[in-house]
């Protein structure tokens, strides 16, 4: 199962580093950027931004563990941007496009620090989330709700989440709650995300 998740994540990153970023840049403006325009450079910058993890604390059965979360957005539909602009994004998502109102699919790993083997600390999650703008079209304040399916050391379950974001969506706080229990029943995440 771990291997399967890893393959999905790697495939997603591969797409993002090649076609995804380029497609976003082109649809972004319906532009005819010249051949010298730095699509690859933009993908590299974007991927560097994705490396930055979001710290979190997971509370489970009488334990609290520090963790790190990464995530990518394979697909997003924005309902906040101008009606004649292209509303779909894959991987590379401008903060305004996300925070002004959107629905996204997300996936990614989390690593929860523990005393067992390295592989046992990985939590894999796939889910859907919707953002709603509150102030300045979401750039100053926005909220989200979502749900996800996750696996941690063989324990699978669903989770529900809510979040609040500010500073162009760069900083946020998310609470993820899984009614099925396990070692990560409640996760509090300081969400750091740049594109």
């Amino acid at each position, binding site marked *: 199962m771990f291997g399967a998740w890893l393959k999905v994540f790697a495939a997603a990153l591969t797409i993002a580093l090649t076609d995804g970023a380029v497609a976003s840049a082109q649809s*972004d403006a*319906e*532009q005819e950027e010249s051949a010298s325009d*730095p699509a690859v450079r933009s993908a590299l910058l974007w991927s560097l931004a994705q490396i930055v993890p979001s710290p979190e604390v997971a509370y489970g059965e009488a334990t609290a563990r520090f963790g790190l979360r990464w995530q990518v957005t394979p697909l997003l539909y924005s309902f*906040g*941007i*101008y009606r004649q*602009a292209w509303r779909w994004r894959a991987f590379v998502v401008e903060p305004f496009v996300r925070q002004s109102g959107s629905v996204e699919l997300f996936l990614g790993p989390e690593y929860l620090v523990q005393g067992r083997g390295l592989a046992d600390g990985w939590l894999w999650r796939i889910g859907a989330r919707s953002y709603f703008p509150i102030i300045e079209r979401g*750039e100053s304040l926005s909220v989200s709700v979502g749900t996800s399916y996750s696996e941690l050391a063989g324990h699978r379950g669903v989770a529900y989440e809510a979040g609040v974001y500010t500073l162009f969506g760069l900083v946020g706080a998310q609470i993820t709650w899984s009614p099925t229990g396990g070692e990560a029943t409640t996760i509090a995440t300081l969400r750091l995300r740049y594109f």
Partner: protein
Amino acid sequence: MVRALALASSLAGAACACTRLSNRVVDPAHPYFEPPAHDTPRSDDALLSVLWIGHATVLVQMGDKWILTDPFLVDTMGEIQRRVSPPGLEAACLPEKIDAVLVSHLHPDHLSYASLDLIEHKVKRLFVPRGGLAYVPDLAFDARELPAWTSFEEGGLRVTAVPVQHVGGRYGIDAAWMTHSFTGYVVEYRGLSVFFGGDTAYDAPDFRRARERFPHLDLALLPIAPIRPRDHMRTLHMDPDEALDALGVLGARTMVPIHFDTLVAGKDSPGEARETLRARARDRGVADHVDVLRIGERRVIVPM
């Protein structure tokens, strides 16, 4: 309350930058800017007039048409920086119908979402540079991209995008692929023409081409700050000297400076841009062609 919470969160998130900024916010008693005027828009005494609202925001009247540039009508830029001088005109006091809003680029002090919300139902059409539509909220007005050297005309009002030198994007890394999302504009109506430079560095070839195409500019709205540190600002912003050079290349009859005395940016001393421009204009003998307005001040450029 919600705005206060957002501001507090933003400040916490950008503690270093905002500490530096807040330390530099000038005491209102300090003569950072000249006392604001409180003029109101009118069109019965002029064929062409301007009212400087602050920063790059200018209400231009051309006959019976109203044009608003880079509307920044709120007290803060993206809830992370407070302006040092309030807008010279409240959104409610703007004309009921604004024929064209010109957005020069996508930075939050030029494409202000809170400001657009305030004027949504007054605006007929908003223009953004190439690539800009993705950053426009879904508001009631019509919005369209205007790539360089393309025009849109309606009711005799013609808006043409002209190239300038700045930086694209809104968030930093998007500048890498939004390489054309900044522009200037020339607006023409009933034989009058106005150049709006937005936020630009000095680029003689661009200005020369603009003059070739628009040889009889009545007015040029040109940015003059931030000035320092010059090595960094030179590629992004004109200083007063360069703005006067641009005026010479463009050949406009009158220049109204913009983009100063509104936000703390760079290392300029209080009032430096304004006073430097006045001094240099005197030195060059072009003071009669340079009209330095106070925020909120209206000036008739071409009388009725």
